[in-house]
């Protein structure tokens, strides 16, 4: 399935929704969206993976890029990752550095 993404700013929260299959051929689109969020001075990044069917290491590098571009103190929330995608994040230890949520939890994400 092809890849697509949408970006949205909710105040200083940047929400990027990833859909389909994220591999090296589309990693540039993800990086562009992260850069856009960094330029908009977002202080939180939400990655909605509810409809992401596949993610290669290109997606993980996007997460590293986000931390490096937006600043180490920017919180990253990964929402709704499927089992297989979740396992990849866990296998590489990335779950230590991002918040893994089953659903968009406004109380946690939007806490002042």
């Amino acid at each position, binding site marked *: 399935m*092809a890849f697509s993404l949408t970006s949205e700013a909710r105040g200083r929260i940047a929400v990027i929704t990833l859909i389909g*299959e994220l*591999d*090296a*051929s589309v990693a540039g689109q993800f990086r562009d969206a992260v850069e856009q969020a960094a330029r908009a001075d977002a202080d939180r990044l939400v990655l909605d993976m509810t409809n992401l069917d*596949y993610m*290669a*290491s*290109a997606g*993980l*590098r996007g*997460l*590293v*890029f*986000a*931390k*490096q571009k937006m600043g*180490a103190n920017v919180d990253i929330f990964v929402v709704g990752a499927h*089992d*297989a995608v979740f396992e*990849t994040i866990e*296998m*590489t*230890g*990335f779950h*230590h*550095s*991002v918040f893994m949520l089953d659903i968009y939890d406004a109380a946690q994400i939007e806490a002042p």
Partner: protein
Amino acid sequence: METFVVPGTVESLGPIREFVRSKAAEAGLDKKRAYRLQLAVDEIASNIALHGYQEQGLAGDIAVQAEIGSDGLTITLVDSAVPYDPYSRVLPSDLDAPLQDRAIGGLGVYLAINNVDQFLYRFDDGHNHNIFVALRERESPSTAT
């Protein structure tokens, strides 16, 4: 054995995964093993396209060979890019480090090696051969009465 040949570019990654997916189904791998095999193959194919061909200013194909055996599926990627042994790559040792302190390379090879039952590399006849073995889940003891 069946062979699927595609141009060695990142645009071929989707079709390669699709081919692996269909062979995995044919071989009777469960969904989880099929996904992990696709991921492993995809990571190495990405490296071949980006580092083996594109960065070297080379163009060439990737041949994807599938062989269904009695205990699972073997996928072999054959390419004519620069010789490259993924095992020569220093794997990330900072998997517990915060993301901002991480080196960005090596994750793909790490995922390739750790998502199949066996990963082998050999250089033969001027070609790289990356070999992935995914075993079928052993049948659990029958619970039928």
